[in-house]
């Protein structure tokens, strides 16, 4: 059946009798992690994921998926597979205590971004940048750097794997504060609804 509605075309087709074949993998894009800076001077925080065919497309799609409301000064994205995750803890146990103190130093020194989860259910927030030879080394270095800080989970991301917003692209969010019509808070129908109900049901 031909339809302009893509959902109709995605319906499974009726097959041939007697044909048994391996299940086909899902034809879908990989995931990319999105980090947003809500205000100038604030740290970047993890907002969620987007599906995209590549890093550049992920940046483009993340812009509307995560920053079409409220305020935003910048965002960046990275392939999910490039984020390394420490063991998760809870209560008063520090995730840094579960990270080995020293790691293999072999290899080129590069910069890595470190993110902390301070509370379950919250977002990972950018904590700082370290220089290290790999993800394990980055976590070990961060352990020394952020000693004494209680965190439940640590992420590391090689700076070179990030698609940043260029200074030239910063004006993309310029008119965002004027788009209040995208917030539910902009629609205050409460009073008018009350008035209508009273008019319809005079007591």
């Amino acid at each position: 059946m031909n339809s302009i509605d893509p959902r109709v075309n995605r319906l499974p087709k009726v097959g041939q009798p007697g044909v048994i074949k391996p299940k086909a993998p899902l034809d879908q894009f990989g995931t990319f992690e999105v980090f947003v800076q809500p205000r100038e001077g604030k740290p970047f925080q993890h907002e969620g994921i987007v599906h995209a065919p590549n890093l550049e497309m992920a940046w483009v799609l993340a812009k509307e998926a995560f920053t079409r409301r409220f305020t935003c000064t910048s965002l960046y994205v990275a392939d999910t597979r490039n984020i390394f995750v420490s063991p998760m803890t809870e209560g008063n146990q520090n995730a840094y205590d579960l990270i080995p103190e020293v790691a293999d130093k072999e290899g080129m020194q590069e910069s890595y971004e470190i993110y902390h989860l301070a509370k379950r259910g919250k977002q990972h927030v950018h904590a700082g940048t370290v220089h290290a030879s790999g993800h394990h080394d980055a976590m070990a270095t961060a352990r020394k750097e952020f000693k004494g800080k209680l965190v439940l989970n640590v992420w590391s991301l090689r700076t070179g794997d990030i698609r940043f917003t260029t200074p030239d692209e910063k004006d993309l969010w310029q008119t965002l504060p004027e788009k209040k019509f995208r917030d539910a808070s902009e629609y205050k129908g409460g009073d008018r609804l009350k008035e209508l109900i009273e008019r319809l049901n005079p007591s």
Partner: protein
Amino acid sequence: MNLENAVPMNVAAVKEMLYKIADDQLILGHRNSEWTGMGPLLEEDIAFSSMAQDKIGQSLAIYTMLEKLGEPPPDTAAFIRKANGFRNCIFVELPNGEYDFSLIRHFMYDTALALRFDMLTRCSFQPLAELSVKIRGELKYHTLHANTWIKQLGSATEESISRLQSSLEYALPYALGMFEISPFENELAAEGIFQGEKILQERWQQKTEEIIKQTQLNLPAWNTVEAVTGGRAGNHSEYLQPLLDEMSEVFRIDPSAEW
């Protein structure tokens, strides 16, 4: 100078220009919003819908400017006029078809619109120059979005390339209709309002070539493409009136209702 009440020297010429831009934006904004909830993937659905909303917002800003120049208010301009009163090009009223056509139209149209507003930032009619700076910022995302998709899908798979190629060939004559010559070309240029459709078209062709060159798509020679015009004079395809009927359906139930 009090910008609120600023009036351009040649009001008729400016009105004609503003109507065609606002109508293009309103009609394509409505068309593109037909994809809402049906986009090829959630993220793209959101992005495309969001840009459609930007277009309608920009048309509202221009209809509001027209109102200050003595024209009817935006709701009247958008919902009451008949098809032959609209000045949009035929390109924007064509049905969406498949997503490849919508993407190609988005690419061709927004490339032209971004260049148009870039030219209008230097417009001698100050309120329009200021509005253009703002709109240019929003359009930067629209062209980035379009260019990235075209570059990606224009070199991805056999299917994506052949789909875009056939949409591109279908769209080109209509796309050239965006640059239909206005009866006020000379006045607009002489008064420093707008340099003209010819210059815009040249810039658009150059920019289009620049992006298409980075893909496996092919552009035919420009002189072999004949523009489909008429929209700017109110001569539209059979697709516009049904769109207008649907767009204004709720408004017409009670034009005096307060929203």
